[in-house]
């Protein structure tokens, strides 16, 4: 299996600096999703596609600088989290296209990508379900005496689940090395935030003693600053933090949802706050062009890789149910 290298996407950002590295990663996520969206339009994505376009800064800002031994829990809308934690674009695409080379042999699609070897403990089809698992990963790190941390992403809709609240309480009680990142994109499937969230999300842990902070989720540096404070605190045994990153879902809930339930002006206003444009503006234009070109190459190679991989057939359905098949 040919591996596509994620040049300069590592924690240090390579010689070109962290800003370049973060921009590159956001760009990679954007272009991967756009490419998959096109593929979806052509009927090539045999599963649902929940696009994170517009929200890239949250994933990249929060994951930037994490170790491989740190853990991330993601959601149904999680391509950006996967890439930010070090997933390979080629195998991720292969998964979305239902190919054998996909992370789950192409059987799971975007809601079921789980790559424990890089600390990505799963996107998830069940809203809120990653949060208790995040508490578990953080506990596991604590119990082993590691100074690793777990970053748990979830949407604002997930704050309605009991699972979220149970995890907040135990994280505070046990001072778990856990960073809760609520990616508030203003919509929960087909209804707005107001239907789902009473009051203020970033304060949900206040009564437990969990510091809460609200940041501009379209500003990768702001997200990263908040997240690295939280990560540092968590590594040092200071316990959990709740970050609410306010952002926006550019497209419908899933590819195919025209999102007629919202206002065009609202969408336009948010598109003007494109996190990529903002991050790119801080770079030397020549460097930015270089990064764009690199990403374009990488995406092209990744798509080719995915398309070369055979479409998964029924013979793979029984794989990976038990360690020793019954």
């Amino acid at each position, binding site marked *: 299996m040919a591996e596509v290298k994620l040049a300069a996407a590592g924690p240090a950002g390579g010689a070109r600096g962290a800003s370049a590295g973060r921009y590159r990663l956001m760009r990679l996520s954007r272009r991967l999703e756009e490419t998959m969206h096109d593929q979806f339009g052509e009927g090539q994505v045999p599963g649902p596609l929940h696009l994170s376009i517009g929200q890239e800064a949250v994933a990249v800002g929060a994951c930037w600088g994490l170790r491989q031994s740190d853990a991330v829990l993601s959601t149904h809308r999680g391509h950006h989290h996967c890439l930010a934690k070090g997933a390979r674009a080629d195998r991720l695409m292969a998964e979305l296209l239902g190919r054998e080379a996909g992370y789950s042999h192409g059987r*799971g699609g975007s*809601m*079921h990508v789980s790559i424990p070897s890089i600390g990505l403990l799963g996107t998830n089809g069940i809203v809120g379900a990653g949060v208790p698992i995040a508490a578990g990963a953080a506990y596991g790190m604590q119990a082993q005496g590691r100074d690793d941390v777990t970053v748990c992403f979830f949407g604002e809709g*997930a704050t309605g689940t009991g699972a979220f609240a149970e995890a907040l309480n135990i994280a505070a009680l046990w001072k778990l090395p856990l960073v809760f990142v609520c990616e508030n994109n203003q919509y929960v499937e087909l209804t707005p935030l107001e239907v789902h969230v009473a009051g203020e999300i970033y304060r949900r842990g206040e009564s437990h003693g969990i510091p809460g902070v609200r940041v501009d989720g379209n500003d990768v540096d702001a997200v990263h600053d908040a997240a690295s404070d939280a990560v540092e605190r968590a590594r040092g045994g200071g316990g959990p933090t709740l970050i609410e990153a306010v952002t926006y879902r550019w497209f419908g809930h899933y590819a195919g949802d025209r999102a007629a339930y919202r206002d065009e002006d609202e969408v336009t206003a948010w598109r003007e706050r494109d996190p990529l444009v903002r991050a790119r503006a801080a770079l030397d234009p020549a460097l930015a062009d270089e990064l764009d070109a690199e990403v374009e190459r990488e995406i092209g190679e990744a798509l080719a890789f995915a398309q070369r991989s055979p479409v998964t057939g029924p013979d793979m359905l029984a794989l990976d149910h038990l360690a020793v098949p019954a």
Partner: protein
Amino acid sequence: MSPTATKTKPLKMWQGINQALVEEMERDERVVLVGEDVARPGGPYGVTRGLLDKFGPLRVRDTPISEAVVVGLGIGGGAVGLRPVVELMFFDFAMIAMDQIVNQAAKFRYFSGESLPLTIRTMCGAGGPNGAQHSQNFEAWYSAVPGLKVVMPSNAADAKGLLKASIRDDDPVLFIETLGLLTARRDVPVGGDFVLPIGVAETRRAGTDVTVVAIGRLVDRALDAAARLAEEDGISVEVIDPRTLSPLDTETIVSSVARTGRLVVAQEATSPYSFAAEVCAVAVESCLSELKAPPVRVTSPFVNVPTPVPLAEARAPGADDVVAAVRTTMRGA
């Protein structure tokens, strides 16, 4: 079928469900509908469209993502005078509300001696590209619970008549819709008051050689298989759709198997500890001496549901599988 319902119209299953909701909400103002995306969006698959406009935001209400509370709304609401219909978008999500369903709703009458008129609607099965957490068929779990009725219609007409019956029922009813059937059409009585009885199986095709007991998406596939078997093999297949899984109409099943001496059970669920197991058990308990061949379970293999539709469809049993199973039973023990 009630006598006033004489006209019929070809409707999709979702339309039958929608009509049942509209009719019952018009008939009885205590009927309300709550769930995720049921109101403004009209349901993720459009099943509840139009209801918010007709009945207003107090009776048709979008909830947050709080499945335990969604069922709690139905229990508490039902206890203080409503006749709630609550929706759990995908059957898989019912697990999050399992305590409320099994430990609370199903035991309400046992503890209090009073009625709990609650209908829990949900949608099961591998009919779309939704994957292993949105496609499961655990109808057998709920059918094992005293105090809870479980209804699982296989077509638009049954969906309408049984949903109306469920809403009027004084016990909690889990009403399981099937994603793969939502857009399947069938003639549905309209205009009158079409209510079907809970707990009564329907013989969808009479036959003499083999009994096929099928539920959900497998009913139509069993009927296709029966037609083919009649034509190709001259085998006469009886197809029974229990429609209600608890209480199960064992009488209809047993009397058919006693006549035919052969049994195939067909379902979308996997085999171990499933509906098919229960039907096989009932049959052998009651008809051992009449059985001419071992019963055959036609089920999905014991693996997770994959996301890509072609794979999910490859996993689900089809008419071919029913045909093969029937032929096996004809070859005997």
